[in-house]
């Protein structure tokens, strides 16, 4: 088991004071902090190996290409893809999902087809499908969420997962509820009706073991910045057979075999989907973040984050008037809650005064919020460096806030 106390030393940003208090960073679902090895690797890359990739035959360019393609192979291994060519580098989860919506969906969907989503989707796994539906004439449909306990209502799955469903996109873990969805089961059910599956892995990728072949999904989208890598890099996993049949995404350098003035031919994946100079330096950090997380052990991380979340859930439930969202047990590493008396933004501002970084608002889940009769929640989300003591600090801070607003 990792020595969790030591893990904190790996993250320079944690060791600072905010408003005169030691920083308690509980906003990991928005973005994690980066370990020292990631930060240093970025400097080192720019100091030594920096050159454009792929089309270069000089030493720096070959080093950069090796590092970039090495990162792709590392990411493939991280999620057990069949080959590096199944990994397309993108800016992050949002772009990965838009890529599928603008390629596979546009080429394969038509009027009468249905895109199935769930009521707990982040805007990034919802709006792209609204746009794709507008463009193709397909319709959206939603698998309901049960209520405050935030589970997918699987009793409704047969009703909504009909043969018209050509694509089923759902989140592996909810960024608001903390729910971990039964992704393998959902993929198996989708396969039965012939629907292609897209998993939004933004919240799962850095927090638990992820094996795309065991999950049986067709696409898996995720962001590097939520797993310790730098910003501006993420990936889309796609099954080779699907990728090879897909039209290109963006046009430009690097994705063609042949360009004439009036027509062009495309390279296979991944190049077909990576027009222009890729974000090669940040891609290298994604490979290193994989190393770092595997060094800790992803099953260990899942246990660590889940235990903190469970503890937070229990301690928070002692606060007067609190409304806690998401499952009572088996949750991922976050807790989200609301009070009638105090708005989430006031809580975040007050907690910040205690050095505690929280997030308040709709968390890009407006439709879910509306369904639950909420305008927003306050969310505390955990990662490998968070501690029980930090949860105590959070609870103490919330008590002070409630006191202030209740006026005594």
């Amino acid at each position, binding site marked *: 088991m990792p020595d969790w106390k030591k893990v904190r030393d790996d993250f320079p940003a944690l060791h600072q004071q905010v408003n005169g208090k030691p920083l308690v960073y509980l906003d990991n679902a928005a973005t994690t902090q980066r370990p020292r090895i990631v930060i240093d690797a970025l400097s080192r890359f720019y100091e030594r190996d920096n050159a454009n990739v792929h089309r270069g035959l000089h030493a720096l360019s070959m080093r950069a290409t090796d590092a970039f393609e090495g990162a792709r192979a590392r990411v493939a291994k991280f999620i057990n893809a069949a080959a590096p060519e199944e990994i397309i580098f993108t800016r992050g989860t949002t772009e990965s999902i838009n890529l599928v919506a603008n390629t596979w969906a546009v080429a394969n969907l038509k009027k009468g087809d249905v895109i199935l989503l769930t009521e707990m989707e982040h805007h990034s796994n919802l709006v792209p499908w609204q746009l794709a539906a507008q463009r193709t004439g397909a319709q959206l449909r939603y698998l309901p969420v049960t209520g405050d306990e935030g589970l997918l209502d699987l009793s409704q799955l047969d009703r909504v997962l009909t043969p018209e469903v050509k694509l089923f996109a759902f989140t592996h873990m909810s960024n608001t509820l903390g729910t971990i969805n039964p992704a393998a089961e959902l993929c198996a059910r989708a396969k039965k009706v012939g629907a292609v599956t897209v998993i939004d892995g933004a919240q799962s990728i850095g927090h638990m073991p992820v094996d795309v072949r065991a999950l049986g999904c067709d696409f898996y989208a995720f962001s590097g910045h939520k797993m310790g890598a730098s910003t501006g890099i993420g990936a889309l996993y796609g099954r080779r057979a699907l990728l090879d049949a897909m039209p290109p995404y963006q046009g430009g350098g690097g994705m063609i075999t042949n360009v004439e003035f009036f027509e062009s031919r495309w390279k296979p994946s991944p190049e077909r989907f990576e027009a222009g100079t890729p974000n090669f330096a940040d891609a290298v950090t994604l490979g290193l973040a994989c190393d770092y997380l595997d060094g800790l052990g992803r099953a260990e991380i899942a246990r660590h984050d889940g235990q903190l979340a469970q503890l937070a859930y229990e301690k928070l439930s002692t606060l007067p008037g609190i409304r806690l969202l998401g499952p009572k047990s088996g949750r991922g590493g976050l807790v989200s809650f609301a009070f009638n008396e105090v*708005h989430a*933004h006031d809580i975040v501002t007050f907690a910040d*005064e205690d050095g505690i970084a929280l997030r*308040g608002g*709709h968390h890009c889940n407006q439709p879910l919020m509306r369904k639950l009769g909420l305008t*927003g929640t306050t969310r505390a989300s955990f990662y490998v460096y968070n501690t029980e003591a930090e949860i105590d600090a959070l609870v103490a801070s919330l008590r002070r806030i409630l006191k202030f607003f209740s*006026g005594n």
Partner: protein
Amino acid sequence: MSDLSDLYQQVILDHNRRPRNRGKLPTANRVAHGDNPTCGDQCNVYLRVDGDKIAEISFDGSGCAISQASASLMTTQLKGRTAPEAQKLYDEFHHIVTTGEAPEEISDLAAFAGVHAFPARIKCATLGWHAALNALKGDAAPATTESHND
């Protein structure tokens, strides 16, 4: 908590707890909706304009203490004003929340001077005002604090 007590002054906490003129206005002849997409705060402002004056005004919506208190206080200040007067008052209010400088005479609005130390909250304080000014202009489009002129 000194900055925080500046931000959440008694006037604000009071308006947040007991908002004035809250609810729909059945006799309204102007309505505007405002939202702050960054945080999800929402505010509707209802006006009955009589001649060139705001005869009645109310608001509803949801949001943080700053946005709710600001909208509540605003309704108490705008009643009976003309459009140019309302604009002038908003300009003064905007000056207060962005600079922290509150001229003597604008007593209650000065409670919002503490906002200037929390730039991310300025949009909360101005949300209701944006909606009210839009309603006065008879502007049908929702006011959003992401508007360019903020």
